[in-house]
């Protein structure tokens, strides 16, 4: 059985962001000529990459999680202690109210494991009643402890959109990636969400699922796979949901470790580069997103956050010094991992991006 320790808990060298960046920029690791991502952007007149309109305020509430998934870019797990405190949440909430972001995206780890999670959701609803609040719920948290059993009702009360990973519609492939027993618990959790109205066409309660490849390959066409997911989950478990997002695995953290350990790193990077799509590059999520770390630092996206690549806007790298004008004009930081968001139909927290 796979160890439940994170890379951080194992003091693995890939737990460090500097070492990950070193690997990503080391040609000898691929043995192939992987062009610099900046050059790729230059060739399509997208460098320096600039924000379009900042609509999404993504907040990482902490790295603690009840699962240790093989592909996790956060290196989240039960042994992670980094967690957002009330003061930081309060500042986030003030910014959400002041700047009226249309989407607030709560992620982790398992965001619900932050003891202030519910308080924070209530605060957001008070200061910005019309925004879309998204929670990236890993599903199994709902069944992890009695105190989480009522999460579906809580989400419903506060009109929270639920986005949940389910890497495949069968047990074998899901459990390989997310751990033994995860598929069965995920099915139960989805049924509980359906019971309160999530995923039903007329309820207005949105339940979206996320597919990401359980291995060193790219995701399929989102629309085609969604049809299969819907047919399989409905026929076998009576589950309904709204949309399926297909997401490409980023070559960082635990997934980078998997690629290196399995001997797939070189081919995977080559595959990402070959599949580079200018249409996807133009619509990458970092152009309309700000990502806030558990300690209040500001990043271009959740991946840059895990690589500790803070926004280039020197005047505003922390929410305590938030300067929206400066952030809107910043150059977005890119590196070799960004090929993960520009391959094929593209990839973001909302799935494909190429129009």
């Amino acid at each position: 059985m796979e160890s439940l320790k994170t890379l951080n808990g194992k003091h693995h060298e890939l737990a460090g962001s500097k070492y990950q960046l070193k690997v990503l920029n080391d040609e000898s690791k691929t043995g192939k000529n992987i062009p610099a991502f900046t050059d790729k952007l230059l060739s399509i007149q997208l460098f320096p990459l600039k924000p379009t309109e900042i609509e999404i305020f993504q907040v990482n509430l902490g790295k603690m999680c009840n699962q240790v998934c093989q592909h996790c870019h956060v290196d989240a797990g039960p042994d992670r202690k980094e967690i957002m405190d009330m003061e930081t949440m309060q500042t986030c909430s003030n910014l959400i109210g002041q700047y009226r972001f249309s989407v607030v995206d709560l992620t982790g780890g398992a965001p619900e494991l932050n003891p202030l999670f519910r308080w924070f959701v209530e605060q957001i609803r008070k200061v910005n009643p019309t925004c879309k609040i998204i929670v990236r719920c890993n599903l199994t948290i709902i069944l992890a402890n009695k105190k989480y059993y009522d999460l579906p009702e809580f989400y419903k009360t506060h009109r929270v959109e639920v986005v949940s990973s389910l890497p495949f519609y069968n047990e074998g492939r899901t459990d390989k990636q997310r751990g033994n027993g995860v598929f069965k618990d995920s099915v139960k959790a989805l049924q509980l969400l359906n019971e309160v109205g999530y995923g039903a066409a007329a309820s207005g309660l949105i339940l979206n699922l996320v597919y990401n490849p359980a291995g060193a390959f790219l995701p399929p066409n989102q629309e085609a796979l969604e049809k299969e997911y819907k047919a399989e989950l409905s026929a076998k478990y009576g589950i309904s949901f709204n949309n399926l997002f297909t997401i490409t695995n980023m070559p960082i953290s635990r997934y980078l470790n998997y690629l290196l350990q399995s001997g797939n790193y070189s081919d995977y990077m080559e595959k990402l580069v070959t599949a580079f799509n200018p249409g996807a590059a133009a619509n990458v999520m970092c152009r309309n997103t700000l990502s806030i770390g558990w300690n209040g630092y500001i990043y271009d996206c959740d991946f840059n956050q895990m690589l500790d690549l803070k926004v280039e806007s020197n005047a505003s790298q922390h929410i305590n010094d938030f300067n929206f004008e400066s952030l809107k004009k910043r150059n977005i930081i890119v590196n070799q991992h960004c090929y993960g968001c520009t391959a094929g139909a593209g990839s973001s927290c909302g799935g494909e991006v190429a129009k």
Partner: protein
Amino acid sequence: MKTYYNPEDLKKFGSIGEFQKPLADKFFDYYGEVFKEGALTAREKSLIALAVAHAIQCPYCIDAYSVDTTEKGCTEAQVMEAIHVAAAIRGGATLVHGVQMMNKVKEISM
């Protein structure tokens, strides 16, 4: 070690146009059209390609369509069943000729 097959050559498939471009262009255009969503889904076509790849025992095609079917969301059971279809047809093709053999044997026997 030198071998007749090199996995890296698969990535160079497109270079066959170096020696004869017009025919290569026609072939790749046709190939691309064939595998688009149509009366059959792209996924169904990929499974057929995988089965045919095994029947004709092309290592390049086996590699390519093992990845393609997996990327298109096929399960392990589905890809293996596709290969069994190829095996059944190949086996059947051998055995059905047994009728011809029987006909001949009967023809020359008392």
